[in-house]
Every structure is written in C-alpha cells, then in structure tokens.
C-alpha cells in the first residue's frame, strides 16, 4: 500500500495541522498526546516537525493550503523562536497564497501583548483560547493553571489585535452546577469572541480525574444535569448573534472554524508532529505518538528520510488505513451529522459511491421514529435531542458484518 504515489500536483487545497506536544502542566481530564516537563526536547522536536513539514511539502509538490492549525498541547507555550522555525518551513514548502485561516491554540496565562504581536507577524489570524470556565474553584478542580481574572484580562489583550477568536468552554465539570455554567456562558457571550466551542467533559480512561471520579473523591454532574447544561447553552445562544453550526460549535456571521470544517466535511489534510493524523488520497494515517521516537525519525535531513521501523511505513507513520466503502459511509455520517447542515444524499453519493438511502434506509426510518434525526430536501440532520445522542445515532451506521 503506498499512499504517496501520484499525490503531487493536486488541484484541491489542503488543511495543515501541526501538533505541539508540550504543556507546562497537564490538566487532570486530558488524555491528549501532550507532555509536561519535556522542555529539553523543544529544539529537537521543533526541528523534526519542521523536517516533516518539508518532507510533505516536497512529496506533495508544494500544495496549496486552505488552513493551518497549531494545536496541542499548548502551542502558545512553545517559545516564539521555535514557532518561527515551524512557520519558516511551512512558508518555504507550501503554497499559502490562498490560505484563509491560520489558528493557534493558547492558554490564558501565556497571553501577552508581545506574543500576540509576534503571532500576528507569523501570519496567524485566528486565536482559540482555552478558558474552560470563568470560575476559579472549578478551574482549580480540573487542574487548570489560570484563573478567571487571567482569562478575562487575556481576552482584553487579544481583542485589541485579533478580530476573530474563539473561546473554549466546558460543561459537566466537577462541582459545576447549572448556575455556574450560566455565568461562564454569559461572560463568554459578552466578550468580543466571534466563535464559541462548548464541550461536555468526557471522562477518559487513565486520567487522574477519571480515577478520582471512580474512587468517589470527585463528583461530576449526572447525565441529566449535563444534558440540561447543553440545552441551556443552545437556548441562551439562540437569543444572541452566535449561530450553532456544529454539535459543539457556534460562530458569529461567517466565522466558522474553516480548519475544523475540513475534518467534518471529509476533506484532505496533513498532520505533522507526534501522533498527528492525516487524510489524503483515500488513506487515513497516523504518526507515532512518542515525541522522542518521532523526533529521532525526523531528525535527519528531509531528503534522506527513509526509515524502516517495525510498523513504520514511511516517515513516522504507524497506522495506515485505506478507506473501504463501508468505512467511508460510516465516517461521512459520523462527521457530517455533527454539522447543523447535516449530510446531503448528493454529497454522500459523491463520497461513497452509493446513495445513503440505499445503505441506511432502514436505519433512517427507525431514527426518525425516535425523533433523533429529521430529513429535509434529501438531507439528514440531527434533531436537538439527536445531538446529545449523536454516538447512539452514529452506531446505527456501523455495517458490522462487513468489518471483520
């Protein structure tokens, strides 16, 4: 299997995701591929990420980028000179003439006017700020370093320089009640943010929070309360300029996150950095997670990268999957249904090669009867009730017999 053949000189534009695996401290609910106390690897890993960018730029023939997204980890925590190095590589090997959106994720305690200016100079035009809550007790409960004062001051600095910025908020947090959630939500609505991401807390295995909850040391709101928090957000935001366009995302006017839309619309992207995922030419693949092994692989001159590791096919890729029809069908539903606009049969047929009614007619009937989806103009969408039960809905689209 070689996903690298004939992929140069493509006409479509790509998304580029850069994974920065550093955090000053790790939050107790987080199971992302990010690490505290590996600052001694700043240099190596930055060089490797730059090398991987160059590697892909060469391989794909300097393709056009539509979006760039620096995620992590905490990209704002990586010293500026390293970010400069990464952007140098991007600008050198990719065509960014039509790039519409360059986002950086940041933590409130990293924000300063100096940094904001430097990001502007790198070409960054969108910020995503990890606020999570405007409540000091709750922030402490989930192991965040910042407090709500810091969050509010950093927003003041950001809005001086950036018109387009997002705030991340979380609900269903330990000791959070409906009232706390309402307060945080209102502060976010009244800031000048153009975009809001509202995420329900997910307990992930292996995280300290999960074991605390299992042991009964911490309590999180029950499902019914969490569902009420979501209902409250949807209802409150309806009265504002924010418009919901995805299960967890709201934007004012046209400020939807273009990079995330690439994922949800099943379009192509390249991910660089440890553990980053890519989707190109009908293949999904994933880099090795360990920053150390990753940086060893890419520490060479990009021209010479031809490392054969037990499972490594090319570069740091450890997992590669050609999309079969069944997988494409499931993923199209799984991603597309997250969007308010839903999945149209035209789009589905184009992607999968068969009408969604043919594949899922029976399932649609059942889910419609349960009030979880609606159908309009040959488009399937989740209802409000369906949004909170998205996983249950999507499970119906798994064609089990064929996955063996």
């Amino acid at each position, binding site marked *: 299997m070689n996903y690298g053949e004939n992929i140069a000189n493509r006409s479509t534009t790509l998304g580029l995701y850069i994974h920065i695996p550093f955090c000053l401290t790790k939050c107790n609910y987080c199971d992302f591929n990010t690490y505290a106390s590996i600052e001694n690897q700043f240099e190596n890993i930055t060089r490797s990420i730059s090398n991987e960018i160059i590697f892909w730029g060469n391989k794909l023939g300097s393709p056009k980028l539509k979006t760039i997204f620096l995620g992590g980890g905490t990209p704002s925590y990586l010293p500026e000179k390293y970010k400069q190095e990464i952007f140098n590589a991007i600008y050198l090997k990719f065509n960014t003439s039509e790039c519409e959106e360059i986002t950086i994720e940041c933590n409130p305690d990293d924000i300063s006017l100096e940094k904001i200016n430097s990001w502007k100079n790198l070409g960054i035009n969108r910020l995503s700020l990890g606020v999570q809550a405007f409540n000091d007790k709750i922030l402490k409960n989930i192991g965040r370093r910042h407090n709500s004062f810091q969050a509010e001051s950093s927003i003041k600095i950001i809005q001086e320089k950036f018109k387009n910025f997002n705030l991340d908020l979380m609900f269903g947090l330990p000791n959070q009640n409906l009232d706390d959630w309402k307060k945080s939500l209102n502060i976010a609505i009244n800031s000048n943010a153009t975009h809001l991401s509202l995420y329900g807390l997910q307990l992930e295995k292996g995280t300290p929070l999960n074991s605390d909850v299992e042991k009964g040391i911490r309590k999180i709101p029950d499902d019914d309360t969490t569902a009420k928090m979501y209902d409250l957000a949807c209802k409150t935001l309806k009265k504002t300029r924010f418009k919901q366009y995805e299960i967890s995302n709201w934007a004012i006017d046209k400020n939807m996150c273009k990079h995330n839309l690439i994922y949800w619309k099943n379009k192509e992207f390249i991910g660089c950095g440890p*553990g980053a995922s890519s989707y190109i030419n009908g293949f999904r693949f994933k880099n090795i997670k360990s920053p150390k092994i990753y940086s060893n692989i890419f520490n060479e001159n990009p021209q010479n990268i031809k490392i054969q590791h037990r499972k490594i096919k090319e570069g740091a890729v450890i997992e590669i999957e050609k999309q079969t029809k069944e997988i494409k069908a499931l993923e199209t539903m799984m*991603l597309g249904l997250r969007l308010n606009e839903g999945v149209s049969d035209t789009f589905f047929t184009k992607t999968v090669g068969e009408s969604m009614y043919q594949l899922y007619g029976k399932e649609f009937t059942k889910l419609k009867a349960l009030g979880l989806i609606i159908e309009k103009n040959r488009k399937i969408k989740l209802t409000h009730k369906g949004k909170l*039960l998205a996983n249950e809905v999507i499970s119906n689209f798994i064609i089990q017999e064929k996955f063996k």
Partner: protein
Amino acid sequence: MKNLNIRNFSIIAHIDHGKSTLADRIIDLTGSIDKREMTDQVLDTMDLEQERGITIKAQAVRLNYISNEAEEIQLNLIDTPGHVDFNYEVSRSLAACEGVVLLVDATQGIQAQTLANVYLALDNNLEIIPVINKVDLPSANTESVISELNQYFGFKSDEIYLVSAKTGEGVLELIEGLIKKIPPPTFPNDENLKGLIFDSIYDPYKGVIIYVKLISGLVKKGQKLKFIKSKITADVLETGFFSPDLQDSDSLNSGEVGFIATGLKNLKGIDVGDTVTLEGQSTSALPGYKPINPVVFTGLYPTDGDDYPALRDALEKLKLNDSALIFEPESSTALGFGFRCGFLGLLHMEIIEERLEREFEINLIATAPSVKYKIIKKSGEELFVDNPSYLPESRLIDKIIEPWVELSIITPDKYIGNIMELVTSRRGKQKNLQYLQEQRFNQDDKSFTARVLISYEIPLSEILVDFHDRIKSASQGFASMDYEIMDGRESEMVKLDILVNHESVDALSMITHRNSSLQKGNLLVNKLKNLIPRQMFQVPIQAAISGRIIARTNVKALRKNVTAKCYGGDITRKRKLLEQQKAGKKRRMKMVGSVEVPQEAFMAVLNLNEPKKN
C-alpha cells in the same frame, strides 16, 4: 468366605470437618504414596474440589499396611463427597464398603449433614467408627462433642477416637482400630465373577474404565466381560487398583476394589449399579442403586449463540461420569437456544455451571431455578412442568402440586428466633425441636446455650435461591442445614411474567406462591430498572399475573451520549471506538424486542429476597 486381609471403608463427614485431611494423613502414615507426590488433599483431584475444599466425585485408593499384629492388610479407602446433593455418590461408595469412619469436628460438633451421612451408613448396615477431629485446636470443644455423639447416636466415650488429622495425632490408633472393628468383606462361595460397578470414567486410550467392587470370583486381562443388565460385552484390557492413580495388577480378586479397562468407546449402557460377570458364567444381578431423580431445573444458555454446539458437547462430557445430570434442548425468545438441565440440588447445579465455565470455557446465562410441579388440569389431564413457560393458562388448571422437603437445621439455640423467622417467611412449618446437649455456660456471651436440631417442612422452591446464605447470616455462620425430599402438596402457585417494553420475556418469568407474588414482582421490576441501561426511549418494565399488571416502573430515556470533539482530525480513533462499543454491546446484550438487555438482568431473579438484615 472371607478375605481376612482386606478392609473397605469410607470417611463420612460434614463439609470442612477434615475428611480430605484425614484421608491424606492415613495415606501418609501407611506410606502408600511417595512423599514427593504428596500434595494436600490427594484425593480431591478436580481444581474445583481443591479450591472449594469439598469432594465432588468419589475416589478410591488402595493402601498396604502392616498392622501391629504384623499382618499385611489391604486398606481400600473410598473417599466420598460430604454434601447432601452428592448423596448418590456417597451411597455408591458405601455399597462398596463394610465400614465407615464418622468424622466430627471438635470445634463444631454434629452438623446437619453428619446426620444424613450416619443414616445412610445405617441403611447400608455398616460398622460406624466415631472420630472427633481437630482435638488439638484451642477452640476444640471435645467434651461437649463426645456428649453429643453419646446423647444423639449412643456412642460410648471409649468407642470414640480423638485425632488431629493435621498433626497425625491419634491417626495410627484409628487405623489399628478400624482394622479390628470393620469386618473383612464376605463373599459367597462362588467361582463366578460378580462385581458391582460403583463409578465409571472415560479414558481416550483405554476406553470406558469401570470402578468395581468384586463380590466373588476373579477377573484378569484377556477375559471377556458381560454387563448383566445392559447385556453389553467387552474385553478386559487391564485390571488394577487405585494408588490413587490407576495402577495395573495381574488380576482382581473377591472382596477387592479396583478398576477394569474395557476399551468400550461409548458410555451408553454402562450404568453405575449394574453387575458385571464373565461371558459364559452365570450370576444374579446385585440390587444396584436407587434411581436418582433431579429436583432442581434451570435453563442454561450460552452467552454467545455460537457456543451452542460447544455447550452440548460439554454437557455430554460431564454426563459421562455424572449420571445424575440430565439435559434436553430448549429455546427461549430472549436467550436463543440452550438446554433445560436437571440437578440433584443447588450445589450440584452450581458445580456443573462452574465446571462448564471453567473447564469448557463457555460463558453461560442461567435462568431462575425451578422445581418440578405436578399440574392437574380441569380436564383431568396430568402433566409435570419444570419450566415456567410451559405452565398452562391458569383457567385450565385445577391443582398445582409442588415438592416439599424435610429440612433439618442444627444451630446454637440463641439463633432459633432468627431462623424461625426466615423459615416461616418461606412458608416453612416447624415439626420438631430437639436439644443435642445440655445447656452450658458460655464464657463468650455469658449465657447458657446449647445446640438444637430443628426439623421443618418447607416447599423445595422456597429454599432454591439464596436460602443457605440466609441461614448462615441468621446464625453468624453457626447453623448447618440439610434437606430431604418428602412429598408433593397442593399450593396456590401463579406464573409471574415480566414485560419489558410491553413484551413478555420468557427467560424472566417464574412460578411463585400467590402470597409473595406482589412482593417478588416489585423487587424484580426495580432490580431490572437498575440493571437495564437507559435506551434511546423510555422503557416500561412491568410484572404481570395472568395478564394483570401488578408492578411497574420505567427506565428513563437516555439523554446524552456524544463525543466532545474529533481532536486534531483523529477520525479513525473515534470511528474504531464506536465500532468497539457496538461490538461489545452485541456481546453483552441480548435484544428483547428493540430493548438491549444485559446478561446480568437475567440473573436478577437469582437474588430476589427481602434485603438482607445484618
């Protein structure tokens, strides 16, 4: 005629009174097994036996011993199960013996199963040698146990042996004693072979191996065997004795206990209790054993429908040396294909279920155990029902007759009240109460106490589930129980149906007494409510009798199951997670209509009594 140098005996005891330890010590002291081969509880060969500290299958071992009189004696020790459910194994073994060692724990005294075992030995006209074990323990109450044995069975103090099987204290004296007291086997003056089959096993190389006690005659390799009742013939491939592994010998003689390998590939027709002789010889059949009738029934279903053939094979294999197990195919709308199985009692059922899961690695769902009811229809037609699904409609039924048992409980008298309360709540009636000893002052609780034997009559169905545990907790672990099937009595029984989302679930229905049906219905629906996960819609759970709803509750609709985000575009991971969850659900859940019901829900009926009082 007598074979003066042979003694055939068993050890009988209540569970945990040290039977297997005493067997070990006797084997040890007669030097019959190399020290290196000695593991604890030599005769308990099944893992399950060693773990639970009980004996399930009878085992035999030949020991050669030079007595104080310098005689060479062949001792055949036949180990027997201690539990009432395995009485058929005990009675088989006893039929091969001339005497028994009655073992009683010095710290516990006579227990319910001690009585049952003594009655069995008396039925078989065996010499009984009373032994008190664990006399070395600080908590030993030897004097009091002597007085119990004296008062209850009439043994004189000087007849009773005091031993510690653990240290070996007194065991040699016991061996000498049993050689003197247990009579050697007698046999008719007859050259014809006559042997009682008391067990059989299957060996892939030697075929069916029968365990026999020779009443008369002699058998050796090369001869031709004849089974009198089944009329099957077979070659004698090998003869030998137990040491305790099978050990070849040239021949087996009158009075001896041993095995014969037959090479037969099929166990059909090899009945325990049958008599073997040689072709061309004529002898009469021995009385054999009482036929064994299962009294407890349950449906066993493989968790994974694909395991159905494996379950059938496993049951057939277990049946080979457990003739008490019966099974026949049945099917359930909720659980698919499985088997209706019949057992001798609750422990027997538990052991079989555990062996199926452990030795054959089949995950099982067991439905609520049931007894066998005799139904007399208004039309006069009679039928037996051991599966609630087959109970005719109530309007067609004239009478339902259910089995009753005589229940014996031995307990310190201060727990009488607790036990009485439990037994009467299960429709039991007290018949008799007898003190086993004089009341004496107990230092621990500064009061006068004594142990009593209480007899009750109680429906078998009432003690099927969670009864033994309740007795134990009502008496802080001191009471012991035993039961014997007595007769059938007319009862007001009803079928309790469970409806999940308005559909009746056959695997959850049960036959219960009308008076407790409301309480059971309420307990069951509330239990199911907590076991059935929330679905995408509200699921009503109802209990009904003859179509009339007597209890109901709802499982609220699921409100939330959504992934926050697809981080960094790792779509594969999320997709795989959903696929795994769905596959996992498919494995754990059974579909009842459109409702996913977890396997635990089908087990809910197994623990359905009033909440435990502590």
